[in-house]
């Protein structure tokens, strides 16, 4: 089972609000469909971030609704099947910059609280 108690301790769910940023960042490499995006985030973090389909698809559709990504059914290059490919839009690119800087500020702020000594030295 992918969600036993022990696994849960090792893998954490994606933080609320960061999923959008992660998806946008992933799409920077080029168009991808939902499955690829989920797998990519999971693999890049060495399975540390657990991708929930329950939040991935609503997030994708939310981004599309906001115009940050566009979606299109296209045939995959390696096989004879159509997938729904998401593509970063110009608006999405700008949003990614915004979210990234926000995240940085947040991480730094958290770090200052958590490790004040390290900050001073």
């Amino acid at each position, binding site marked *: 089972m*992918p969600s036993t108690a022990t696994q849960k301790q090792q893998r954490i769910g994606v933080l609320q609000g960061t999923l959008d940023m992660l998806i946008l960042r992933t799409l920077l490499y080029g168009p991808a469909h939902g499955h690829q995006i989920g797998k990519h985030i999971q693999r890049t973090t060495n399975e540390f971030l657990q991708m929930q389909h329950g939040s991935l698809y609503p997030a994708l559709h939310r981004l599309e609704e906001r115009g940050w990504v566009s979606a299109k059914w296209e045939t995959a290059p390696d096989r004879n099947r159509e997938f729904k490919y998401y593509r970063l839009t110009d608006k999405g690119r700008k949003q990614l910059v915004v979210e990234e800087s926000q995240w940085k500020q947040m991480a730094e702020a958290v770090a200052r609280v958590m490790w004040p000594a390290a900050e001073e030295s």
Partner: protein
Amino acid sequence: MKWWQIKKRDADLERELRSDLELEEEEQRDNGLSAEDARYAARRAFGNQTLIKEHTHEAWGWTPVERLLQDARYAFRQLLRTPGFTLVALLIMACGIGASTAVFSILDSVLLRPYAFRDPGQIVVWREVLQEVAKEYPSVPDNYRHFVYLRSHASTIQDAALIQNASFAIAADGDHPRIEKGLNVSPNFFTMLGVTPMLGRFFLPEDAQPGRNNVIVLSWVAWQDLFHGDSGIVGRTLKMKGQPVTVIGVLPRDFEFPVVNEMRSGASPDQTFPYEIFQPFVPQGDALTSDDAEFAFLVIARLKQGGTVPQASTELSSLLRAYSATNHLTVHLSAVVEPLSQEVTGNIRKALWLLFAAVLGLLLIASVNLASLQLARAIAHERDNALRAALGAGRTRIFQAAFMESVILCLTGAALGIVFAVGGIRIFAAIAPENLPRLHEIRMTWPVLLFSCGISGVAAFLSGTLPALQSLRSDPQYALQSSSTRFSHGGHTSFVRRLLITLEIACTVVLLIVTGLVVRSFSRVLNQPHDFDPSRVILAEADLLSPRYDQPNGSGDSARSEVIDRMLDKIRSTPGVGSAAITSAMPLSGNNYVHSMYRPDHPLPESEVPTANLRNVSPGYFATMQTRLIAGHDLTTSERANPQSAIVSQKAAQAAWPDGQALGRKFKFEGRIYAVIGVAADARIANLKENIPVVYLPFWHDPPGAVFLLIRTSRGLDEFAPLIRRQVWDIDPEAAVPVIEMLDAQVGRSVAPERLVSVVLSLFGVAALVLAILGVYGVLAYSVSLRTPEFGIRVALGSSKLKLIRLVLLETLMPVGGGILLGLLASLAATRAIRSLLYETSPADPLSMVGSVGILLVATFMAAFLPAHRASRIDPMKVLRAE
């Protein structure tokens, strides 16, 4: 995204999820799992697909709408599952909303829709008050000289115009002339109202010079009817009363000046058609010089911006008082100003508001009834709702779903109701009194549709809130644990339902009492002795318009007298005619031709001189009308050359000779001395509701131009009417005969507003009663079905049938008794408000009260008895086994 694309998007999402699921499955297979295990693993990885879909839908932002539609679909299915209930509920709401819409559309066009003038709210009517006769006539028409003075001195008035009702005889296509109603108006009349001509021009000041007023303006209708909308009409000359007149303008289509009367509330039944012809008013004769007589005109005025009616009233009154003081007038004057809209709708205003209040009451009863029915359903669905709550449905969602049913019922009811209303308006227009102001303007309009949408919303709110709240009360654990489908519910619901019934009964009591009073008052108007018998009397109006009657020094009058005598002779000799006579005023057209009765032997101050309505009649009048002569004898043809006799009505006799000895006494009337040769019973010939003093004079002293023939005959109207026309035209081919009908019809028309209100209110009363019966029955039947196990046990333990019946009936005692008490209290206020609509009927009329309550008690008892009887026949064995 647009919400109608949701279906497409949903399919798209489905396909996306499926394709990704397959990818996941392939991946799992690549990891070495068997096909079946791979499928399960992929499914597990994906989790709850329905939930994913729901969350994704939320991302689209149309969830509230989707849920609403879902609830609507669900509510529809629920309603279709109980077609009987749905049909009844729909009919109740459709009737309630339909009736309200119909009444409102009448109210809207008769009372609320503004006239097609500029700022119609600023237009007022002013009349004078003559202190000397104020007791009998609170206001009198205007005097020309006073009008001129006030118009130039009043600062609250922007402009004012004088008008006078007139009949114009137009010979459009040769033949016999047609009578068209119209107005003589000051030349500034149209500019004051703010209308612009559709064709040609309106009057100029010089058109009102003596001899220059041979110009007319046509209403749009007259232009269509008489000249078929001929665009070259302006400048055409035609003959009116033998004289050439020129058409100078045509009014726009939407302009219509309401029928007004010089006398207040003298709206006479013969004035039902719109004004078609307008001619400049030329002041002449006594009007130019008299300051204490000649009250014969009506003033229409426009208030200054920001001016109010009371301000104008006060100013005009003080100006008139000053005027009569400085000119040493013998009369004491003041003025009374009224908005035009109020003047026109006068009496009908209150009646229509009463109908409106009644129909809203009916709608309230219908809503309460639906609420009560819905509440029963909410209780029946308690388990469903408990299950939904247990599965995690939010409170808003449950409330919304339950509320939806009422919304659907009310909206569908409203749609049906509007269809009903359109039909209702048609029926109303057909049965409504013809003299209802602005009747032909009644139609469906946007404000009316908006109104019916509004009230259906209110009805949905009224009928849906309580049941929806009820559905929130179900406690999942409690409801689901109970094995029976009929678990006992808290006392709360039955309390609310009883409260609703109380309210319903209270409304019904008020409606029934008001209806009872109005119907009683109407039947009193009809059934009191009115001392004349209109049945089998034909009424025909012959207008003698030939120029030869206009000859000076009395020869015109004698020509007219001779023609009238010849007509009477001819008609009397027709087979089938019992008797025939004439009178100078349209019967039942109100108080008019009022003059003072001076006694030479007993002079009185002007303010105490009794007055009476003058009627010029021919011998045989009393026999034809079947009015009793209490003393003396009828007029005779012997004094044709020099009329000196009069017959007075009992009331006039008492007013002039309080000692009771009228016969043989002399009095001065209209400048001549007459001797009383007869006293007639008090016939209500002016108005069924009013006993007015009348002086009957032999018509030869002043033969009328408009002759009202009264013919008592056994022959039918259809057969006789052409004969009468021919006989009149044989004698005077230039006479117009605008009216031939049964006198009965004229009497009926004079009480048509009262009849209408009585009939419509009675319909509402019956509807309310039916709803009340339905309500009581519904509540009780449901309560009995819920308590079947309890009753079964009671019977098993030895309770008698009678005791069970009494138990059930007692349940209705509180709400019905409370409702009646509440209704009686409310009706105290309601009946006081309609006091002015009642004729010789006390607002606290015991028969109406007792009758209404009695009918309601019998009806509710019958409604309650059925369920009670059913309760008494419960078979304990069956019930206990079922448990």
